[in-house]
């Protein structure tokens, strides 16, 4: 019975009389355009997010272990030893301390994070290696490029690094100041870092910030960054509860959640395009049902059940939507290819970390649109199919 209904549905769908051809085309292209519209819009969002992830991954560690407090409660060499043993998952890691201080140049003072690390140990500089312009002179400081620009200093100029908890006096702690030459600049690509970071060799920093409790930081990059949450979970029992473990996903959660919310919102709005296209299917099928009422009456006179008649009409709606969907998917992939090949969507690199947005249509999006099209076309076809079986056979035959 199903194949018979399919055969009849195909024949009726391809039977054009008068205006039904135009309405069929409008319905078909409605689905094509709405499918392509949703897929490309979601593709732009996906492409943007993927690219942003890559850019962020290139500029920040995958996992950060932080500890603030009494040194005696954590065993840093032990933690570093554990990481050494996990070389199969870890690409690189570095250890340093962060002191909170200030920098002064003339009358200008700004709060900074002083990253104290061993300039002589290249292992500790893996995250900065390609981003430092200048020398790694242990007697100098490296400033974030935006910080250097704001202070108006360049290589060779002197700046004052201020330790807020410096010298103990009867009146409390007095700040301690040390003048150091600028030996280089750091360009991480992230404004927050480049505006507020000073790199110092730990031999100098530990003396200057002797009374300041440091934040101990271990930065880890994995071979597979997407493995970060599960790796972080497995690391927790090994290194103890004292460390705060943050993955790159946690750090950027608000950003990606905001982007996904926006993507969902736009997906919902664009869904209305399919709804409108489905209205066309409803109109078309109503006309088709009107045209074929006599045939419907004959099928029913010959004992075909109502479900058979409904199936013929529902299949027509489904076939029209599916063909529109398939062409829409094809159009989307062709446009995706050209947009990516000719880099057609330009954005400002200083704001978005990328000069163009690639389009990335995912299988998940295709499946979502597929299910949506199927559902809406069934709803759209149900109304005329219900109308078809509600018609009185005798009335149809008498009217002829």
């Amino acid at each position, binding site marked *: 019975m199903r194949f*018979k209904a399919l055969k009849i549905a195909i*024949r*009726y769908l391809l*039977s054009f009389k008068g205006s039904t051809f135009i309405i069929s085309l409008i319905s078909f292209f409605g689905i094509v355009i709405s499918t392509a519209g949703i897929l490309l819009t979601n593709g732009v969002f996906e492409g943007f997010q993927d690219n942003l992830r890559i850019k962020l991954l290139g500029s920040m560690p995958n996992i950060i272990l932080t500890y603030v407090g009494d040194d005696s409660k954590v065993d840093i060499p032990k933690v570093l030893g554990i990481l050494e043993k996990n070389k199969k998952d870890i690409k690189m890691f570095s250890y340093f301390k962060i002191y909170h201080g200030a920098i002064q140049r003339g009358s200008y003072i700004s709060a900074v994070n002083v990253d104290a690390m061993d300039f002589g140990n290249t292992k500790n500089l893996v995250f900065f290696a390609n981003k430092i312009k200048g020398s790694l002179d242990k007697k100098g400081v490296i400033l974030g490029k935006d910080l250097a620009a704001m202070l108006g200093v360049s290589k060779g100029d002197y700046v004052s690094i201020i330790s807020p908890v410096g010298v103990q006096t009867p009146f409390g702690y007095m700040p301690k100041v040390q003048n150091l030459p600028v030996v280089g600049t750091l360009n991480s690509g992230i404004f927050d870092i480049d505006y507020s970071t000073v790199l110092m060799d730990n031999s100098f920093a530990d003396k200057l910030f002797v009374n300041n409790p440091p934040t101990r930081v271990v930065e880890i990059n994995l071979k597979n960054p997407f493995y970060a949450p599960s790796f972080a979970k497995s690391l927790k029992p090994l290194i103890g509860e004292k460390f705060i473990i943050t993955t790159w996903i946690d750090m950027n959660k608000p950003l990606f959640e905001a982007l996904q919310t926006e993507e969902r919102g736009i997906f919902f709005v664009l869904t209305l395009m399919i709804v409108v296209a489905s209205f066309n299917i409803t109109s078309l099928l109503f006309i088709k049902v009107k045209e074929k009422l006599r045939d419907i*009456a004959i099928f*029913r*006179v*010959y004992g075909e059940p109502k479900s058979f008649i409904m199936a013929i009409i529902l299949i027509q709606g489904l076939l029209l939507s599916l063909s529109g969907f398939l062409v829409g998917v094809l159009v989307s992939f062709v446009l995706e290819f050209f947009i990516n090949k000719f880099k057609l969507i330009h954005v400002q690199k200083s704001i978005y970390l990328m000069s163009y947005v690639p389009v990335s249509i995912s299988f998940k999006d295709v499946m979502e649109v597929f299910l949506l099209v199927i559902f809406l076309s069934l709803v759209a076809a149900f109304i005329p199919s219900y109308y078809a079986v509600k018609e009185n056979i*005798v009335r149809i035959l008498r009217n*002829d």
Partner: protein
Amino acid sequence: MTESVIELKNVSKIYKDKPVVEGLSLSIKKGEFVGIMGPSGSGKSTTLHIIGGIETPSSGDVNILGVWYAKDGKVLNEKAVSKLRKKYISFIFQFYYLLEDFDVLENVSLFGDKKKAIELLSFLRLDHRLNYKPYELSGGEQQRVAIARALVREPQILIADEPTGNLDYKESHKIFSLLKSLNKESNITIIVATHNEELKPFFDRVIYLG
């Protein structure tokens, strides 16, 4: 004694307060070729529709092939009636009602076995028209396709509503000769509504309405 395949007891049908069929009782036996005659508006088509289970009576009892289609004011549910029609009852109409989008063979095979459809169409001298669309056929040919469609399921009852109403005298006689031979050879019960008195000799029995 031959069994009744159709039995109507005191059947009435009222349309918009106007009785179309009133207190009709009749019994049709298996293998009979019955004519229902009467002037226009006498309720011939309505009677056929009730006998064929496509129209419910306003009152009275209707038994089709031993199944009570209507009894004591209750009517058999639509699913069961559809099954009954699909298995045992076929129809032929004055305007043929062939499916325009399908060719001759499909018009018949959609309602039954394809092999049987070809056999019937050959028997009805339509084997050279198998791939023709209905609009490419003459009225007589179209009615023969409709007859093939009606017979492809090997029904027990064939109901024909003015089957020659659109045909000339010669074609009408050909169609009735064909129905008569089918009735004799296959023992199908055939009930025909017509107002054409000239066709009366073909019937075993005539029921007058109005």
